[in-house]
């Protein structure tokens, strides 16, 4: 869903609320849910689908 040229709208997978995302969001990008603060991963852009992001794992880093 597209609200205007600057933002996209998606459903928060945890609460079901509609949330806005920057228009330049990438598949694989992590955003913080403005509703719960939970990390959400962008799964697809057309349509915009979000899922709860994977938990931090021990070998993540630089």
């Amino acid at each position, binding site marked *: 869903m597209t609200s205007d040229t600057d933002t996209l709208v998606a459903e928060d997978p945890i609460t079901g609320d509609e949330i806005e995302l920057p228009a330049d969001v*990438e598949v*694989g990008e992590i955003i913080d849910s403005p509703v719960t603060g939970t990390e959400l991963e*962008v799964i697809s852009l057309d349509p915009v689908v979000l899922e709860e992001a994977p938990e931090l794992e021990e*070998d*993540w*880093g*630089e």
Partner: protein
Amino acid sequence: MKVGILYSRIRKDEKLLLSELRDRGHDVEKIDVRKQRFGLDSTTAAVDDLDIVVDRCLSTSRSLYATRFLDSYGVPVINSPETGDVCADKARNSLALAEADVPTPATEVAFTKDAALDAIESFGYPCVLKPVTGSWGRLMAKIDSRNAAEAILEHKETLGHYEHKVFYVQEFVDKPGRDIRVLAVDGEPVAAMTRSSDHWLTNAAKGGETTPFDLDDRALELVERASDAVGGGLLGVDLMEVGVDADADPAEGGGADGYTVHEVNHTVEFKALDAATDVDVPARVVDWVETKATELAGGDTEEASV
């Protein structure tokens, strides 16, 4: 140029990189390693016509295996799996630096709780216990007493993963409340900053305050040698100042009479450096990616083009 980006999570760093690549007209193939399979002579990942692949995997294990497989197919990949192997393991990292005569904190590895306790006692207190794999300052312990050492070693022994039974013990370097992060491409610095904190861990990921830092000749030399020691690439070289005069102003260098290189990172994050300095870090990184693509294709580096 067609550039592959290996990833499993798009951080701000990857967004900066993707934006710079696209702005220059490069075709970008994002490769989510979680969705791919890697066979002995081919992969499901669309890598056949890529000029170069940039490893930006957040997960060290995925980074090491994915780059190793791509390299075996003859796909140009940066950083190389050899560099990854050295940098991903703190023990190998320390050995590589020591073998290249790059000053690095005194370190011992032990495989049992008793031997690790002996190592800790021989360093004295405080000293530092680190996981051999890990980042962002996680699971690092500054050990101030034998009681603390015994408790931490017992906890590590019961954590489960065999890597926690590889006890990496290191001298505590009394740095002047900051360390230095240098982003370098094949030993040439792109930008540098200090990371300051009242906490002994000064990582930006731990909330360390970042300030641009001018490298002196000695630091420049050590960055180049540290990069060479691990095989080169796009690297985060971390240094600490040593021999600091406690009465000197840290902002003026703290009176340090030298540096020690504590580690080199191979999937380096650069958003903090980009924000802390005037350097256009993603642009400099893409400059280097273009040069490497030409170099790895066997061309003249002067001819790198879109």
